[in-house]
């Protein structure tokens, strides 16, 4: 049994060791902290990104289902009314998605009917466009801020496949990015009337997607079945599938980021192992003295494991703190790059994971040096006597 007295003695030994070897100890703690910071920050950012992406899909994918075609914009617009009449369908919203350029900058252009705008955005400045209005645009506020665009200005929009840039009058500025960024990595988002979007790509009467809002009393599976019966060859997408696809993409990114974490953890492992090893080497004679005056192998293990645990705890605490700071910096970077707007989700479990894994890694990486220490023979004390 490990007694409190032994713990007291071991703690004295270890704390002095850390004090007397400040620089090496600090490096070990920093190495662990770096690994933990990488783990914590990437976990926080990943969880925040998933939550943000989920929120975006909830907002953008306003319906439970969507019918989409094989090409860029090949669903006849007239089916919208047929779909709306299908059993279980509350509303069908036609949309055109076009990649193009606004003011020479790559943009993601959404074509939406004026009556459906309420499902997509809320204007911060100006207004939404009305029925019958043409060549009007609602611009994302981030882009407007960057390019100094105000309501009333005229901007030029051009599709990627078209050759003519059309003038559009800015009628509103909205936080479209927050709502749509989860779907794309483009940094510029604009919403124009459906007719204008069709004109941009010369696809009058066709749409990219029909968003389906199911009747609340109907089961989504049943509505999907009904639509399949109506249009056997149609591609029908569920909101969960989009969410799943995005989650999958985030998972792939997570995997890549995990590699960074692994490097961080490896640095922590080698750092701790090296520090404990050097401590054992430096104290080899003292270990032999302790063994000669009555320390069991187990007592030596307790002493050096305690040192590793203290390194792990200190590194874990510092790393968790650094991880949160790093996550905030990453969030700001991601936001400023226009990739995704998100708020940090500080999950106590992630901090606990960082802290405990730090201690676990420290203990695991110390097994070999500590075993070496426990095998020091008391006879070593007489060497060089």
């Amino acid at each position, binding site marked *: 049994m490990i*007694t*409190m*007295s*032994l713990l*007291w*003695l071991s703690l*004295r*030994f270890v704390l*002095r*060791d850390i004090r*007397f070897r400040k620089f090496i100890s600090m490096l070990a703690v920093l190495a662990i902290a770096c690994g933990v910071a990488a783990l914590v920050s990437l976990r926080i950012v990943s969880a925040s990104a998933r939550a943000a992406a989920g929120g975006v899909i909830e907002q953008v994918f306003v319906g439970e289902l969507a019918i989409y075609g094989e090409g860029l914009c090949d669903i006849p617009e007239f089916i919208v009314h047929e779909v709306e009449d299908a059993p279980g369908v509350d509303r069908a919203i036609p949309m055109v998605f076009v990649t193009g350029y606004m003011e020479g900058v790559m943009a993601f252009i959404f074509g939406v009917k004026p009556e459906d705008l309420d499902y997509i955005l809320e204007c911060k400045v100006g207004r939404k466009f009305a029925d019958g209005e043409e060549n009007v645009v609602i611009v994302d506020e981030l882009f407007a801020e960057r390019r100094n665009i105000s309501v009333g200005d005229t901007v030029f929009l051009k599709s990627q496949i078209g050759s003519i840039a059309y003038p559009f009058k800015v009628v509103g500025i909205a936080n479209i990015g927050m709502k749509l960024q989860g779907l794309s990595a483009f940094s510029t988002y604009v919403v124009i009337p459906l007719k204008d979007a069709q004109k941009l790509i010369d696809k009058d009467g066709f749409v990219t997607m029909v968003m389906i809002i199911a009747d609340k009393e109907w089961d989504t599976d049943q509505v999907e079945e009904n639509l399949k019966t109506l249009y056997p060859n149609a591609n029908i997408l569920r909101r969960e599938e989009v969410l799943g696809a995005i989650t999958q993409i985030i998972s792939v990114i997570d995997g890549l980021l995990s590699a960074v974490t692994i490097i961080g953890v490896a640095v922590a492992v080698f750092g701790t192992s090296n520090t404990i090893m050097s401590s054992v080497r430096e104290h080899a*004679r*003292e270990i032999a*003295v*302790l*063994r*000669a*005056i*009555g*320390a*069991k*192998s187990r*007592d030596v293990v307790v002493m050096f494991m305690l040192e590793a645990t203290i390194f792990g705890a200190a590194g874990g605490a510092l790393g968790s703190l650094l991880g949160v700071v790093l996550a905030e910096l990453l969030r700001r970077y991601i936001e400023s790059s226009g990739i995704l707007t998100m708020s940090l989700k500080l999950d106590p479990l992630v901090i606990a994971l960082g802290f405990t894994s730090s201690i676990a890694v420290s203990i695991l990486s110390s097994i070999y040096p500590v075993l070496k220490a426990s095998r020091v*023979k*008391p*006879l070593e*004390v*007489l060497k*060089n*006597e």
Partner: protein
Amino acid sequence: MSSVLRLVNVWKFYGYGDKRVAVLKNINFKVEAGELVVVMGPSGSGKSTLLSIASTLDKPSMGSVYIGDVNVTELNEEELTALRSRKLGFVFQTYNLIRNFTALENVTAPMILSGLYAVDEARSRALELLSLVGLREHYSKFPSQLSGGQQQRVAIARALANDPEIVFMDEPTGNLDTRSSAKVISLVKWLNEVYGQTFLIVTHNLELTEIATRVVYIRDGILYENPPRDLLSSKLSEELTRIRKSDIMKKAQLNLLKTRAQSLRRLMIEGILPRNEAEKEVVRIKQAIRRLQKTA
């Protein structure tokens, strides 16, 4: 008196096969309670090996070691640790205090490791032990803040921590100046006389024999009750005869002198060495060569 320590037919070998060397040769030796035994011997005589085996730090190749009635050669490492912790004390030449511990903690450590004392009990006993060796006021100092003599006295206090049956000392004054040595030696004598503490000290310091209740001598792994005076002189004459008869050594010396003479000649020709100096040196070399040839 009862035996605190007993070595029975102890042999210790190092190496294997043809290279096997006997470091201890059939040692039979006892230390009774209350004795202060000094084992004298020059370097390489086997005294440290004797100490390591007697103190259970090492095992003999053959024979048995008893601490009290316990045959320690039959104990495993953990049992030996427990025995060392409760029955034996150690003082080493280089003090071997734990750098990370203060003087007080160094003395406290064996008591806590033995599992016999709680921290408070161990600390209060350690303070008393430091008073005993005259270092109570230095209790909070680290070894690096103490002189060699003070460190050795802390080591003695540490050795006494668990009231050992016997204290083993390996060259306890080996690293100390005269004044510190005197303090340590008188402390050991006082502990033996007043406390009745048993000591086994290995050393080549003659002064320690003055405080001993018994002195034994070790040469080439053999223990003697009286100083083996004839050993060195007979070894010397044997060695001299061997050297005188050695053609290889003579030849090597002649070659060395010849190459020295050649280099002197070259230095003289090149003008690096003045002629008169070179000539004097050549005369000296010639005399040495003649002396060597005479002994042929």
